[in-house]
């Protein structure tokens, strides 16, 4: 190929190369338009978030736009009020610093889809440790005290304070015959005297050492209820656990409980009753010498399964 070969090399004397600082500074303005303005003034003046609905596509757009971009229908009159609550559909944590940011990093930028809206929009989430941030978090809007007629008239979104959440115990289906759990406590003189007051049972065999000397036990003993009630934390908090309803508890006492004895109450699943989904449990109460203090059975209704 016959073409003029051009010289591509160049002598570069770097003493002549330097840099100059400059700036790009331009004023500008943005018009929200009629629809956008109504959205902003509603945030600013009424603390209300509004959207527009496309009745054809059955979609609610937030922030609102005057035309449905899918079917091209003019939806500019179909205003809907929206609640201030929603769900996080995605998020990222910004860690680097830059002059144009709305808040100082690190901060969470999230997509929030309000309840009843079909489109999410971006905003800041505050009030949750960064490591705990997750998709699916339910949030609510916090409106700004000083307004600027921009989207920042919503200052940020914060997690909705739900009630404390608990983990329920074993359900009927999760329980298996043979499962067992227990609870141990030392019964003290204080427990006995307080129980006397609670129950009204001031029987001198519990309260009067001189009298108790004349009984076959030879000294004061605890009320029967005191070892017996130790099964309650087993059924109610361990096996089956939270949400259990105790339907029937029977106990036969085998040996006295002396002040200072350490009693272990054990419940074991022995039968599952499918018709009513009740569970029968065998109860045993032993002391520090492994002597059987009492035994019995309980019928319980375990908690429902977790969704």
């Amino acid at each position, binding site marked *: 190929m016959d073409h003029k070969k051009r010289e591509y090399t160049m002598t570069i*004397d770097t003493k002549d190369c330097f840099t*100059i600082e400059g*700036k*790009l*500074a331009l004023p*500008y*303005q943005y*018009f*929200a338009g009629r629809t956008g303005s109504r959205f902003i003034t509603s945030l600013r003046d009424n603390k209300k978030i509004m959207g527009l609905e496309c009745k054809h596509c059955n979609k609610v757009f937030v922030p609102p736009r005057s035309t449905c971009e899918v079917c091209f229908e003019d939806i500019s009159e179909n205003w809907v009020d929206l609640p201030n609550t929603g769900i996080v559909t995605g998020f990222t944590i910004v860690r680097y610093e830059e002059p144009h940011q709305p808040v100082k990093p690190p901060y969470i930028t999230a997509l929030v889809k309000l309840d009843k809206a079909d489109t999410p929009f971006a905003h800041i989430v505050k009030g949750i440790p960064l490591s705990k941030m997750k998709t699916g978090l339910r949030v609510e809007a916090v409106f700004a005290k000083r307004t600027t007629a*921009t989207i920042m008239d919503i200052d940020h979104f914060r997690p909705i304070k739900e009630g404390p959440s608990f983990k329920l115990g074993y359900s009927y289906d999760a329980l298996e015959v043979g499962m067992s759990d227990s609870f141990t406590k030392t019964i003290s003189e204080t427990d006995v005297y307080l129980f006397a007051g609670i129950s009204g049972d001031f029987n001198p065999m519990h309260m009067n050492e001189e009298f108790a000397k004349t009984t076959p036990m030879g000294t004061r003993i605890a009320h029967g209820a005191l070892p017996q009630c130790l099964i309650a934390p087993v059924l109610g908090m361990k096996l089956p656990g939270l949400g259990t309803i105790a339907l029937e508890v029977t106990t036969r006492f085998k040996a006295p409980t002396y002040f200072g004895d350490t009693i272990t109450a054990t419940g074991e699943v022995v039968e599952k009753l499918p018709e009513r989904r009740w569970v029968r449990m065998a109860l045993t109460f032993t002391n520090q010498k492994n002597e059987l203090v009492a035994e019995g059975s309980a019928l319980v209704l375990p908690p429902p399964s977790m969704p």
Partner: protein
Amino acid sequence: MSEHNKNSLVADIFGTMESRVNPDGIKGITANYGYVIQGPDGGTWTVCVADGKVTVREGLVDPHVTTTCTDEDWVAITLGELDGMTAFSSGKLKVEGDMGLLIAAARFFKKYAAPGAGPQETPEELIVLKQVLSLDQTFSTGPVMGRFLNALKEKKILANKCPECKRLQIPPREVCAECVVRCEEFVEIGPEGVISTPDVVYYASPDPLTAETRETPYCSCHFLLDGCKGHETMWHELKASDIPRAKRGVRVRPVWNDTLKGCVTDIKYFEIINA
């Protein structure tokens, strides 16, 4: 309201001005605005603005700027039926004196409502967000522009020469724009020369560094420096006070700043050499 009745609003418009003053709009303004309204319902008035107050006087009282138009047009402009700028461009509104003062006047008064007009509907609010985009930048000169800028520090103006067509380029560029070959030969030109084509600017654009507009008039000018010919001109600025004498062929010389930084503005401007 009939057209004739409407024109009779002229007196009312001026009569209600003092009660319709917009305090923010007149802040910092001291000037007299004369109005010559022609036609059967016209008249002459002067709106005197000073110290945050407005006084409307009959007749023309030392106006700094005078606006002339017909009674019909004046009412139409005030009621928003005719755009002031359009009226001016099409010659319906004539202005004598300091035009810059007139632009501020648009904000002096609250909207005028003719007597008997129904309750004013609150116009819907349209949101406007105003910002200044400001980004820092760093520019590399490269060896060619860098050499040119460095030479300015020694009060020397360099051009470079095309090896093929021998054309000079000022400021020097890596390549000849006509022949597309590298230009490696640098030549010192000027520093004196003649005016080639002056461009007097009355309407300035904002300074890209500060977003502020510069004072006018100023003169962007093409100079043919000694050693150059034809269109090998250098584009710079002519001293503002030399503008009335600016003509092709007049001899000029550069005026340098006290501190030279290696920047095109090390030359403050060129000035005419007085014989």
